[in-house]
């Protein structure tokens, strides 16, 4: 017989656990100007290989860069007041003089030296920079010399990975920056807490405190907003927009598109991934995809059809030079007929007993449905696209690196003001990136990208970038731009002043306030 006294340890354990569970001590309080933000998974835990906390992809506004990427993709002064090209791959930056780090020490040229060196050491600096790239001219003047001609440096330096931190501080543990918020607390995978920097050199933040809480599950983020547990939810799932909009206490804010859905084509693959060396096939693929249907039906209108592979604003007045390839399946069929691919009994085309079969990869973070959509569109013109779903970024990256694909559907972001960033990443044969091996044709496209990087005037950079993209999209069909996607945010109706940045990682929080 089980005696009732045997349950006593169980009761003791229960009471112990109940007491122990209450000791977590969450950092959030109910201060008047506090905002709780539901962020996605904690993707930048501390300590790893020169990483910086609260910088990328979630920008907590603790650090600041020399230049700033405005929401309209213009490059503006931030910690540097102005800059000039001095020749011989060298830029001179004149630094702001009235700036203090959060620990009270003054911001000087030495901080730029150590921060850029750390970015380079960590492997997350864009552009051809060496650890000793920065030379101090005086306390508030520096020269930055690139290892290769790169006159797009001021545009690139607006990326948060180039944030400047106090010399001697450890941005992987406790970042000490100059931004409108100072670092308070971090618990890996749980939260980041920042507070207003009372000595901020610019316009002070209206919020006293922001708690970024990590919710890896997107549905839970939405539910936390609807329950009033958070004031702000990042990256709402598209299918939950209606639920939030119907809720009286919350609203949806959309950013201008800053994330591009592009289909990259493997033009240099080895058999059996060698078919897309033929530009007629590539053009047929571009002609067969109905971008309007994709935007309206799959993304419920929360995106825009695009013609260029990058954000049009970054190309300035030259964006219109890229025409894109309009949806025309009849023309696609004619092109395929002309290339000798004739439809078989099952509708799939073949040539000399070889079926027109292509391997389609999609980025694992892309929501379901997009792979099937592209597959279905290609099937209508007789192309059998085999969609290979890979479980994680590691397998995806490995497969791309090995070139075992024909089509790659991915979502690159334009996170800086460099119009050559995306073309230079995958379509420039000397980029050193593994994917350039499969996508970059070399020759004139390389020359255009290099010329764009060597143009002292940013407007010339935009013109040459637009020309390179026109060649890649309109002429060579190396990439098929499909849509520009908006970031979706759920805000409690008490949250005001939020201006969504199309590049989420450059999001500013200082203008936001909460009505309590």
């Amino acid at each position: 017989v089980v005696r009732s006294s045997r349950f006593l340890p169980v009761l003791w354990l229960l009471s112990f656990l109940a007491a122990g569970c209450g000791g977590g001590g969450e950092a959030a309080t109910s201060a008047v100007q506090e905002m709780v933000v539901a962020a996605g998974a904690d993707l930048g835990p501390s300590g790893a290989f020169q990483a910086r906390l609260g910088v990328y992809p979630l920008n907590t506004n603790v650090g600041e860069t020399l230049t700033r990427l405005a929401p309209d993709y213009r490059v503006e002064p931030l910690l540097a007041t102005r800059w000039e090209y001095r020749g011989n791959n060298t830029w001179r930056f004149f630094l702001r003089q009235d700036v203090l780090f959060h620990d009270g020490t003054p911001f000087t040229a030495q901080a730029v030296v150590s921060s850029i060196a750390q970015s380079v050491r960590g492997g997350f600096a864009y552009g051809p920079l060496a650890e000793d790239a920065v030379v101090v001219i005086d306390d508030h003047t520096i020269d930055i010399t690139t290892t290769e001609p790169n006159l797009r440096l001021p545009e690139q330096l607006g990326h948060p990975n180039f944030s400047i931190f106090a010399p001697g501080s450890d941005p992987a543990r406790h970042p000490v920056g100059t931004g409108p918020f100072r670092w308070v607390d971090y618990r890996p995978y749980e939260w980041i807490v920042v507070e207003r920097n009372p000595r901020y050199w610019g316009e002070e933040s209206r919020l006293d405190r922001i708690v970024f809480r990590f919710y890896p599950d997107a549905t839970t983020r939405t539910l936390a907003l609807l329950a009033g547990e958070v004031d702000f939810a990042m990256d709402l799932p598209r299918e939950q927009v209606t639920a939030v909009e119907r809720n009286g206490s919350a609203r949806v804010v959309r950013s201008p598109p800053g994330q591009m859905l592009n289909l990259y084509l493997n033009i240099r693959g080895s058999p059996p991934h060698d078919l897309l060396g033929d530009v007629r096939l590539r053009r047929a693929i571009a002609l067969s995809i109905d971008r309007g249907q994709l935007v309206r039906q799959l993304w419920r209108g929360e995106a825009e059809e695009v013609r260029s592979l990058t954000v049009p604003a970054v190309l300035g007045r030259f964006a219109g030079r890229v025409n894109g390839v309009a949806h025309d399946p009849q023309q696609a069929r004619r092109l395929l007929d002309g290339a000798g691919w004739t439809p078989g009994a099952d509708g799939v085309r073949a040539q000399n007993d070889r079926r027109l079969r292509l391997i389609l990869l999609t980025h694992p973070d892309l929501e379901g449905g997009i792979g099937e959509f592209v597959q279905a569109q290609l099937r209508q013109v007789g192309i059998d696209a085999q969609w290979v779903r890979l479980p994680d970024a590691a397998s995806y990256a490995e497969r791309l690196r090995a070139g075992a694909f024909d089509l790659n559907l991915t979502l690159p972001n334009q996170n800086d003001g460099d119009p050559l960033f995306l073309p230079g990443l995958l379509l420039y044969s000397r980029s050193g990136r593994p994917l350039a091996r499969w996508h970059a044709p070399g020759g004139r496209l390389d020359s255009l990208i290099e010329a764009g990087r060597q143009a002292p005037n940013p407007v010339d950079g935009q013109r040459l970038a637009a020309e390179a993209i026109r060649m890649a999209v309109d002429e060579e069909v190396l990439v098929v731009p499909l849509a520009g996607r908006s970031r979706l945010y759920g805000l409690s109706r008490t949250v005001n002043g939020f201006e969504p940045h199309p590049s989420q990682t450059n999001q500013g929080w200082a203008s936001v306030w909460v009505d309590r």
Partner: protein
Amino acid sequence: MNSPALAYVARRILSLLPVWVGISLLAFALVNLAPGDPAQLILLRQTGELPTEEAVQRLREQLGLDDPFPVRYGRWLADAARGDLGTSLRTGEAVLQALLDRFPATLLLAVAALLLGLLIGIPLGTLAAARRDSGFDHASRIGVLLGASIPNFWLGYLFILLFAVGLGWLPVAGWGSWQHLVLPALTLAVGGIAGLTRLTRSTVIEELQADYVRTARAKGLPERAVVRHALRNALNPIVTLTGVRFGRLLAGAVVVETVFAWPGIGKLVVDAIYDRDYPTIQGFVLFTGTVFVLLNLLVDLGYAWLDPRVRLTGKGNGGG
């Protein structure tokens, strides 16, 4: 505890050594065979773009990933023998510390879910057995079927919608107070309640058909006392199931931890697998392997405690 039993316990603890070597070797081989390069992923996470091959190679050298498999495994094993499970490739944290930091959250959730399962499942199953073929029995069987069939994540969302969004009684997710524990523990417990109810019902029914029960009834023992005796004799398979289930819970409940943003080791190891964070995966395998072996030992000790006919000896797995 008598000396044969002590010898038995010592022997079982010693058996951990080959288990550790075996599972760590297997895990090391498996994660190294999986496609993907941790150096490439570290850089990919920091920039959002596939890095240059030069940068990847530099980092591979820095991390010692270019050394041959036996060299890396030997190095890891030697460090592990000194209690150093290495450093996470993803976070730079000491793996042992990361596991110890997250284990309390997992333990808390596992214990709460298990207790809920025991406190609800055993009485429900016993009552269903005692009232076999009654309306209550049929209702409990339908409940068991539902509980065993509903996916965790869906149930979690349902509970959040009802108790957090609708009624506002409990927080949606996170951790830090006892209220945060309720919904994930309940979500996780539902499957356990279903399993325990079903098992308790069937084993108690079996016991109620035994000769000693007929004798007890013939002698006029009240039905409540009869059922209590039957339950006591039906406990061995329940203890086995509880041990297995507890082990699984301690290895982390990834879906529930993700839905409720619960900082347990399940989510930690899944992230480690995605990032090919070899040291964290290794450390986790070793850690959970140890937990399983120790839990099995506790279950065996539980048999002896519950059933005086079971004797533990140093020569075998215990027996009658």
